[in-house]
């Protein structure tokens, strides 16, 4: 029989296939390389021109709306500029020095780390659990799937404001529910660390459905015969989950980890709607501090420096994930 171990050795990096894995996929044809030397220079140049022409419009849009602002933001980070003024002063790396030495920086970084770990970790675990549940043949499964996914399509602002009502320590629904079990409501709006907990809970509520949906798709591409074989060999369902399902889900997990991490580090709307980064900065993440510095404190140059720091963090996180996490990915 095939085990997960032998499977992992055969991995060609293709997306999860709906069919059971082939023992050894045939090498892909590589016509370009093979006939490279035979292709005339003229034809190659013409192909290149066509490629440029066809890619042009997209490249142009990317350049204008993604890369140009990115570069411009690097440039702004060397300025002292208040966003409204037609003039600015160059300060070199002064903004960076200030950020790295500011007394508020460790707090912001810690808050960001707590928020990111809690939202990404929580969403992955809860999402997987929900997916396993929704993968079973239950009555009303279609409805349950829709309901679980629905929060993801709602606007973060609307979600934040609705949950703000529910968390109200004096009149809110959460306070009522806690009252049923005899617990007092925490001061969700004012007392640390509850505002951060509140924001994390809402973020999870909004995003778990998305994680579950992607995991559900992953679960359905786990070959049936593998699970059947494991069952025949007497593996418990926990063992099957650990040794077969989870390893085969690693491409999905990897994809989710990257996208969720990026989304979490960039989240803004729920925080803005619910706490505006407060009280006392206890929900101010790196992303929120960029908004705060730029639009509230009128320090667009400094905010650009913080944005650059965030950009580098995201770049490093993604590179590390690509390099190390991908090695452990199993493809069916």
């Amino acid at each position: 029989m095939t085990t997960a171990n032998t499977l992992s050795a055969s991995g060609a990096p293709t997306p999860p296939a709906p069919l059971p894995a082939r023992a050894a996929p045939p090498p892909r044809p590589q016509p370009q390389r093979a006939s490279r030397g035979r292709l005339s220079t003229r034809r190659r140049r013409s192909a290149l021109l066509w490629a440029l022409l066809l890619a042009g419009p997209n490249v142009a849009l990317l350049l204008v709306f993604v890369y140009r602002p990115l570069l411009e933001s690097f440039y702004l980070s060397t300025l002292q500029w208040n966003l409204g003024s037609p003039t600015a002063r160059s300060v070199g790396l002064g903004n960076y020095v200030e950020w790295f030495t500011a007394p508020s920086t460790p707090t912001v970084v810690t808050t960001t780390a707590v928020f990111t770990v809690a939202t990404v970790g929580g969403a992955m675990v809860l999402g997987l659990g929900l997916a396993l549940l929704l993968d079973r043949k239950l009555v009303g499964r279609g409805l349950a799937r829709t309901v679980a996914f629905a929060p993801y399509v709602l606007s973060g602002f609307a979600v934040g404001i609705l949950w703000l009502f529910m968390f109200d320590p004096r009149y809110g629904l959460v306070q009522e529910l806690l009252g049923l079990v005899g617990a007092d409501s925490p001061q969700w709006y004012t007392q640390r660390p509850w505002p951060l907990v509140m924001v994390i809970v809402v973020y999870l509520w909004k995003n778990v459905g998305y994680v579950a949906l992607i995991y559900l798709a992953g679960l359905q591409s786990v070959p049936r015969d593998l699970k059947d074989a494991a069952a025949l060999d007497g593996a418990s369902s926990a063992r099957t989950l650990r040794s077969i399902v989870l390893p085969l889900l690693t491409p999905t997990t990897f994809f989710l980890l990257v996208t969720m991490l990026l989304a979490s580090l960039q989240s803004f709307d729920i925080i803005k709607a619910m706490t505006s980064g407060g009280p006392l900065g206890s929900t101010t993440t790196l992303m929120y501090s960029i908004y705060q510095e730029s639009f509230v404190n009128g320090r667009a140059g400094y905010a650009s420096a913080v944005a650059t720091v965030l950009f580098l963090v995201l770049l490093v996180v993604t590179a590390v994930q690509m390099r190390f996490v991908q090695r452990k990915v199993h493809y069916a």
Partner: protein
Amino acid sequence: MSHRPARRPRRHLAVASALAAVAALTATACSGPSVGSTPAAADDAEAIDWSQVEPASEITWWSNHPGQSKAVEEELIARFEAEHPEISVKLVTAGANYDEVAQRFQAASQTSDLPDLVIASDVWWFRYHLNDQIMPLDDVFEHLDAEADDFQPALYADYEYEGQHWAAPYARSTPLFYYNKDLWAAAGLPDRGPETWDELQEWDASLRQHVPANGSTFGLSTGPSWGAWWFENMIWGQGGEYSDGFDLTLDSDESVAGGQFLHDLFHASGVASLSADDAMADFASGLIASTIGSTGSLKGALDAASFEVGTAYLPDGPAGGGTPTGGTGLAIPSSRTPEQKLAAAMFLQFITNTENTAYFSQSTGYMPVRTSAVESDAMKETYAQTPQFRTAVDQLADKARPQDYVRVFVPGADALLNQAIEQIVIEGADPRTAFEAITPQIETAYKENVEPYL
């Protein structure tokens, strides 16, 4: 991909032009500030001869509809268009509060997507002026015979800098002391607000027996554009202030005493409780017996409360006290054409004239911005029917004090001051420590964003 017969020159041309277009787009889309050693001096643009200008046929107004006044503002526009059919006014909801409108206005400043008339709140207009984003109104008001000297002097003077006025008062307010008359009567107290903060503490013993279990005698909420506003009354009451001119005075004994007073109000005497979200909502629901709220909340409170609402001056401290003025004015962006500016000024004059400021005041609770409106029959009738409306106007005349520079003129200082206030109120922090923690940031903000432009 299919290969058509080669028509190379054309293709080259196409590629070249595509690349050229990219390059051009990249270059022209570049915007942003120009870098100079010193910011451009705020030169007054050459004077416009307004008599030679024809007003534009359409103008745009960015507002957050202060005091839930969207319908009121639409009515003001309808009245204006009836009188001036040649000019139409487009009302844009540019944010949910003053800060959001200001942020949008800042972000749009390097573009042509600007309004002709914009909300300019007490903590924002000076920043607009420092950036040369708004124009002085004196000349155009003179041309229009706008009778600027009929504006309530304290309110119009708020927008004066170097002999010129940079905005006109519109939705102007002061903080008011709101109290629950029913609870007051039940506690056997006289039907008036406390004259001093000490008196409120004395009354606490009897009031406390009549508020709900999780309520309190007095409640407050904090937040940007709010906490550091009402706290001016308390810090002044102890003889302190945020700043003397632009010099920070948060470390003076009197200012620290102000912080200590706030600390004790919440953490020693227990007279006050922190409202989670909106103290006005807690007040209207009867949870707290009194609060501080803006004049602009008056109409809403009268409508929402099931009891009789009383309004009074803010209580005094041992060194007096007084009330800051606040709210918002309206300004005209300097980069608009003379035609647009003139039309905007005509509209501004119209909605702040005697009749319309009275209408706006009656509909919201904001103060009438013209002296003639305060004395008008319309307002007199309102004051006779709902005397609560009168308190703010009287308080303005009796107790108003210009705000400390640092709060209104230093970008971001209001939010930092609010942070110190929250530290004291929420965490019971030592006031001196809380003030010291924000001092370097306020000093940086002043050095970066104010000093070079003065």
